[in-house]
């Protein structure tokens, strides 16, 4: 009976499969299904590659291997690796730091597929000696995560929370390039969530309230920011403070509706961005816009603390950032 080399019933998540028998006979039947490629290797080097179809292995369709074995018709040794060309989904999650060293956690989904099987086998399978789908998947996820971490750390915390769409698209483009180097095509990336510590969420809240990233960043802790800002009218955080005194003079008014950042790209760090839109409040814990008057954030579930006049105040604030009212 002729030898049959076939990847039978590959699982949903299987990227590669190594044919267990390394002794191949001429005349063997090679079955390569749609969305698959079969790669012949020896000593870590790639020789012949065959696409979908039913092939009888001959000296004609494996010319490089035939030459390698010195033109003999006796069985030869080779590793056959099947590569799936289907699209795969992976989940990721990790921690990194922003440009101002704020700790950030992130998670999401990415989709990828093999674009260049030879490069992929060379870089990943052969290059890392990973001959098993689980190992390959793990390697790709780690590689993705490493890139994600590196690229995200180039942004400021305000970018991440205020312009996540733009940031994630920019990061995706950079990751696409990283993936191409492995013979992979990164089809899409979705960042489902980013988060930071309470301390930094409150800092973020103050930055968005005052539009003054620099001044807020100079304070050691978010509590100090809250205390400083609440001290007295217009005192607070130095010359850069434009929005606050004005707000303090208008008690019981919602925060001034402000021009949202109008440019397209990610703005430079420390840009002035009063974040609130008319009638829109911002959750001090996750940075997302919440419905006016909400008692709980619909995104992160945190209870929303308010001053006696109903303004959102972050944890630890002694005074309302909008009206200056004392917080019990």
């Amino acid at each position, binding site marked *: 009976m002729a030898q049959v080399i076939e990847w039978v019933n590959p699982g949903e998540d299987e990227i590669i499969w190594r044919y267990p028998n390394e002794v191949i006979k001429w005349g063997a039947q090679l079955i390569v299904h749609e969305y698959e490629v079969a790669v012949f290797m020896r000593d870590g080097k790639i020789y012949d590659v065959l696409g979908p179809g039913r092939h009888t292995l001959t000296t004609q369709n494996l010319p490089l291997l035939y030459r390698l074995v010195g033109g003999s018709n006796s069985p030869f040794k080779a590793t056959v690796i099947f590569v799936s060309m289907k699209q795969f989904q992976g989940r990721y999650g990790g921690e990194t730091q922003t440009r101002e060293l704020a700790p950030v956690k992130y998670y999401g989904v990415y989709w990828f597929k093999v674009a260049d099987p030879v490069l992929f086998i060379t870089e990943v399978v052969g290059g890392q000696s990973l001959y098993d789908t689980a190992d390959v998947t793990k390697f790709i996820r780690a590689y993705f995560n490493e890139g994600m971490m590196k690229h995200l750390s180039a942004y400021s915390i305000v970018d991440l929370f205020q312009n996540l769409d733009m940031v994630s*698209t*920019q990061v*995706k*483009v950079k990751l*696409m*390039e990283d993936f191409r180097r492995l013979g992979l095509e990164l089809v899409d990336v979705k960042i489902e969530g980013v988060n930071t510590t309470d301390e930094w969420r409150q800092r973020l809240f103050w930055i968005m309230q005052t539009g003054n990233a620099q001044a807020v960043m100079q304070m050691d802790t978010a509590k100090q920011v809250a205390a400083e800002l609440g001290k007295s009218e217009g005192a607070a955080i130095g010359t850069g403070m434009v929005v606050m005194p004005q707000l303090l003079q208008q008690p019981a008014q919602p925060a001034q509706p402000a021009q949202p950042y109008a*440019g*397209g*790209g990610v703005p430079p760090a420390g840009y002035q961005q009063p974040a609130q839109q008319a009638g829109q409040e911002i959750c001090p814990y996750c940075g997302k816009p919440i419905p006016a008057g909400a008692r709980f954030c619909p995104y992160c579930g945190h209870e929303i603390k308010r001053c006696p006049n109903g303004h959102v105040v972050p944890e630890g604030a002694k005074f309302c950032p909008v009206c200056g009212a004392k917080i019990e």
Partner: protein
Amino acid sequence: MGKETSIVEKLELVIPGFHGYKKKELIREDDRLVRGKVADTLALARREMERALQRCAMVSCAQLVAIDNLRKKLMALESRVRHAEAGYRGYFDRVKFKEEELNRLLEYDAKMIELAEEILNEVKALNGQIANPQALGMAVLNLDDKLVNFEEVLGKRMSFAAGE
């Protein structure tokens, strides 16, 4: 020389090996050749699109997300064209086409190829306008139009081929 003949000739010129659905045992093969040609053109456009995206990300251009959305649309179209054979029934199972059916199919094919080329050119134009916000906005809109247009023709061609 009839109109049909010139369409076949044009197709034969851009698609090596194309038989114009004249040999019944090669009808599916002809279909595969046409779709392969169109998908390859769209793949070129996608690669060009990725370059545009990279340049756009580098200069933080305002259309980044819009361009990425077009890229995804383009990718979806490419794989729809390339892997359409699954479940094909109808006309491609016929022994022979009636003349007016054949002409319609050829017209769809020619239109798909033409539109794929236009998409490729539009993407190239877009790539050339990354640093020019005004023109880039227009290029994005133009490309979107072309993609919508292509999708329409593809849809019609597919349901025609399925015998609907």
